[in-house]
């Protein structure tokens, strides 16, 4: 589904060029959920922007197979403050000029599915952080994406809302079988949601390790002994990568 080979991204800043990604390679299978984790500034978000097609000046090879519908969900939701919940969710469909009945059907379906239907006439300023993120998820899902890209989608939410939304995301993933690439700095989130976890080094980002968690999707996975072992292993690997960088 996704093949990334030797991806290099350099930003030109006033202080000179800054290398964000220095030869990142990994693959994500169709229908797989992949979490990318690493310290702040390691180029995680840059990687996502390259996959979303929002950043096009890079070196290396990035292949997304087939005619893929990509949707991106950002940390700060990116909702339009002047559109209500319904209008925000319908926007992507309207610009694709879908028939109004189809827009109505898809938007209603996902708003009901995510418990937002009653809030459809409210504006983002009238919603909580968790509700805003649900709207952002609905807005992405109405496009029926094959590839769902998420940039630290739950990091600005409180712990309970975050866990509830992580479980909602897993349900959606099992329902739609879309491919997910999720960028996070939370080890628990990466292990809970990522069948594959790609560990990046501090800037410039390189792949330090790739772990697989076949139990992802099972609701009891968060309480499984292997879950904590996987978290500990990643925490140690991240500390080692950080020390190697500073040392």
């Amino acid at each position, binding site marked *: 589904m996704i093949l990334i080979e030797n991806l290099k991204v350099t930003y030109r800043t006033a202080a000179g060029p800054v290398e964000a990604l220095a030869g990142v390679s990994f693959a994500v299978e169709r229908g797989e959920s992949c979490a990318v984790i690493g310290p702040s500034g390691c180029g995680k978000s840059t990687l996502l922007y390259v996959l*979303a097609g929002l950043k096009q000046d890079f070196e290396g090879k990035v292949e997304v197979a087939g005619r893929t519908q990509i949707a*991106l969900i*950002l940390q700060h939701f990116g909702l339009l403050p*002047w*559109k209500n919940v319904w209008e925000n969710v319908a*926007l992507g469909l309207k*610009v694709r000029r879908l028939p109004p009945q189809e827009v109505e059907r898809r938007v209603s379906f996902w708003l009901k599915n995510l418990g937002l239907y009653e809030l459809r006439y409210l504006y983002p300023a009238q919603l909580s952080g968790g509700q805003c993120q649900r709207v952002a998820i609905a807005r992405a899902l109405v496009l029926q994406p094959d590839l769902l890209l998420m940039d630290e989608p739950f990091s600005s939410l409180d712990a309970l809302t975050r866990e509830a939304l992580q479980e909602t995301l897993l349900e959606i993933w099992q329902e739609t079988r879309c491919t997910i690439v999720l960028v996070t700095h939370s080890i628990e989130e990466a292990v809970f949601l990522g069948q594959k976890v790609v560990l990046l080094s501090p800037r410039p980002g390189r792949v330090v390790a790739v772990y697989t968690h076949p139990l992802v999707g099972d609701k009891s996975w968060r309480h499984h002994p292997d879950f904590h072992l996987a978290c500990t292993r990643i925490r140690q690997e991240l500390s080692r990568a950080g020390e190697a960088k500073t040392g």
Partner: protein
Amino acid sequence: MNRYYSSLTACLALLVLWEVVARSLHLPALPPASQALVVFFKELPGPLGFNWLVSTYRVLAGMFLATVTAVPLGLFLGRCPQADRLLGPFFSLIYPVPKIVLVPLIMVIFGLGDAAKILLITLVLFFQILLPVRDGARHLSSYLVDAVTSLGVRGLAFYRHVVFPAVLPEVLTGLRVASGTAIAVLFFAETIASQEGLGYYLLDAWTRYAYPDLYAGVLAMSLLGFALHSFLEWLEHRLCHWKYL
């Protein structure tokens, strides 16, 4: 609704104060409010009403022209840094020039009719709209832009759904703030070799020492400014209600 009652109360208080001061001073140049109001209502179906309509037409036409030229240009400059780098310095240079100094020049080129007066108002308002619109479009949150672009919102749809609604509050605030200046400039322009408009009416009353007429004209001009300001405020609340949630 309370705000409207407050405005009405303030207006009545001002009229009462005017009446009391005028009746105690007994100056010919300061007739009581009641006398000015009688002339105002008597003249409204006649010359005052006609000149009021002429001035209103000129202000509205100037506002319309300034909006339809400054908004698209501001949006374009805000989203196209190359064009802004090229044209921005010219606008920054012209913006602080008081447009009223151009009155003689504009009248020489465009004559003494409506065109010169409308153009003058357009000029005053143009920059008050252009610069906030440009800055608003330029400083759109990159988060919003990325999120919306990833949904496939591009080209004209991007301007329609994202850039224009984002700068609309700035457009209406710019118009509201500048409406007072626009009326002041119009008054000045209408006092120069003019045969129509509230400025002409006021100047005419002044030269005839017809003080109640003069005050009726002042009332009409104040009401024009108040009505414009209130209309634009109402429009802002109506079109940008999301800002007041």
